[in-house]
């Protein structure tokens, strides 16, 4: 059974991020991690591998050279193989382009199951999973909470729906996106860390996957960032003055009516 996990290296939640003077690009402190939701995908793939003897887990990312570190983390956790699709000089922000590249990789690799996080925590687009499934013509279930690959041909999946849970059966090959609650991603054992340190991770030019260059060229992007803007700073806390509690409450009601206009 071939399991592919797509992952993304994203800025650490504690990394400092600044908007550059051109207003449409970012300067990010050099602190990157595997995307939070992708950790569940890697863990689940490894769990399946541990249960069935013939499964192989391949992790793959389409991104810059530095993303190899996130692939190493997946190997340390227990993935068998990792591939970097190097985005150097190519479009890698537009989800449609990214999905085309990932789907081309999966088609070349051969697959029974694809797992990836339900969204990346940097752009929050939550669209890659669905798009890749569409390009491959395989079923797709998003944000799964449990997975049981019963016989290698079908999978039973539980996912969250408004107000409850939904259980479905999916024919394989399929693409499933993962979310918090599916499992607890493991902390790598030192044996895994050693394996990951020594692993030679191929740095692949995605143009060899058979996609026409013009489809993944930066000029092919259907979406272009016009500008970034930081969230507005919250106004300072206002302390209501008043001699007695009653006076303060009166002041509060007045402020809610006249300033906040919520009453």
């Amino acid at each position, binding site marked *: 059974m071939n399991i592919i996990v797509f992952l993304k290296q994203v800025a650490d939640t504690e990394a400092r991020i600044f908007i550059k003077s051109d207003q449409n690009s970012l300067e990010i402190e050099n602190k990157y991690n595997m995307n939070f939701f992708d950790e569940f995908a890697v863990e689940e793939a490894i769990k399946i591998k541990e249960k069935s003897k013939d499964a192989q887990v391949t992790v793959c990312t389409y991104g810059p050279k530095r993303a190899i570190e996130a692939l*190493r983390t997946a190997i340390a956790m227990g993935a068998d193989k990792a591939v970097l699709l190097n985005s150097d000089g190519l479009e890698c922000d537009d989800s449609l382009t990214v999905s085309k590249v990932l789907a081309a990789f999966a088609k070349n690799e051969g697959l029974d199951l694809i797992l990836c996080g339900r969204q990346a925590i940097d752009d929050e687009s939550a669209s890659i999973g669905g798009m890749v499934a569409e390009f491959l013509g395989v079923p797709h279930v998003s944000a799964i909470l449990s997975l049981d690959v019963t016989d290698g041909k079908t999978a039973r999946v539980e996912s969250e729906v408004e107000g409850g849970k939904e259980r479905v059966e999916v024919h394989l090959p399929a693409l499933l996106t993962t979310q918090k609650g599916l499992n607890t991603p493991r902390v790598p054992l*030192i*044996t895994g860390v050693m394996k990951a340190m020594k692993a030679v991770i191929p740095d692949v030019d995605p143009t060899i996957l058979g996609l026409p260059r013009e489809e993944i060229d930066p000029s092919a992007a259907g979406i272009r960032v016009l500008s970034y803007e930081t969230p507005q700073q919250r106004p300072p806390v206002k302390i209501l003055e008043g001699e007695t509690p009653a006076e303060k409450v009166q002041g509060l009601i007045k402020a809610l009516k006249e300033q906040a206009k919520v009453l």
Partner: protein
Amino acid sequence: MNFALTEGQEFFRKTIADTVDRMIVPKAREIDEKDEFPWELWKDFTGLGYLGLRYPEQDGGMNADKVMCMIFYEEVARGSVGFAQSVIMNILMGTYFLFRFGSDEIQKRCLYPAMKGEKIATMCFTEDQSGSDLGATRTTAVKDGDGWRINGTKMWITNGPICDFCTVLATTDPGKGLKALNFYLVEKGTPGFSTGQVIEKLGCRGTVTGELVFDNVWVPNENLLGSELGKGVVYVGEILDEVRLMTGAMALGVARGAYAEALEFARKRIAFGQPIGKFQLVREKFAEMDMLMNAARLMVYYGAWLLEAGGESRLIAAEAKMYATEVCLKVVDELTRIYGANAFAYEYNPQRYFRDARFLLYGGGTHEVLKDFIGRTIVGKV
């Protein structure tokens, strides 16, 4: 010159830092407050296999180079210096002499389980009247049949009260000072071997430190850890630089933890209508701390690189231990000033860093002893 970590070392740094953030940092406060050995964390963390860090792969270790060892010591101490002390005792001092001189049987019985965290190791030098002055060791080992009879009391033993075995330093002739010292393996359950007083410490809480009593303890010949009698001090010399650099790395770890707390506070705390990090006198503290920490880091890692390369590292190791620890004391002090009065409250973290930093003054040699050693070495006989 190349100061960069290799890609492998960088990956190791990131992985161990992440592991510490996930497993140790959330428990650091509780470890300090309870001041009990964190058995559950010990089981979970040691289960990852890091205790074999510096030993060869064929023995189940990782064969990590000295730079990687420093990265590990620094990161674990950043999480909890109390927990780090217990972990590092098993990794380095508590197991080294078994690795170097232990018979196959001893390695199987003690070393390998200790590398997995199944057994807790310790090494005992210090006595109530001697620490840095090893020549004043009063614990004796006397030849008795096919073995040795050991008598004495050891003090300030990290992991002592909970250890499964210890490497104990004893003299065969108290009149001969440094020339009569040897190491012996003593295992829990050996008649006459018992634990005494547990020391309640100001900092580094959570690691259990105390007294070990050897009352007519008999051990067989194979428990003498050394190929030649009276060479104990020479054997200690084999790991002395690593021990000192390790203490420096731990100091760096504590300093980084304290620095991060200070930075977060300076960015968030509002005074006179703006974050206090905007005031020049507060910024000056960060400039100073960053400069000192970078200097300490260069010394510790240069020492580690030199040690790995087989260069002469004795002076730099002593200097790095001393400097990094003094920098750590300065950083924790600045943290308490930036934090203001809250730093004085048990409710917040600064007091923990402040207390923890003090202990690093003593392990690996007091600074008075180290300075004298460095000066004496440089000036030579005059």
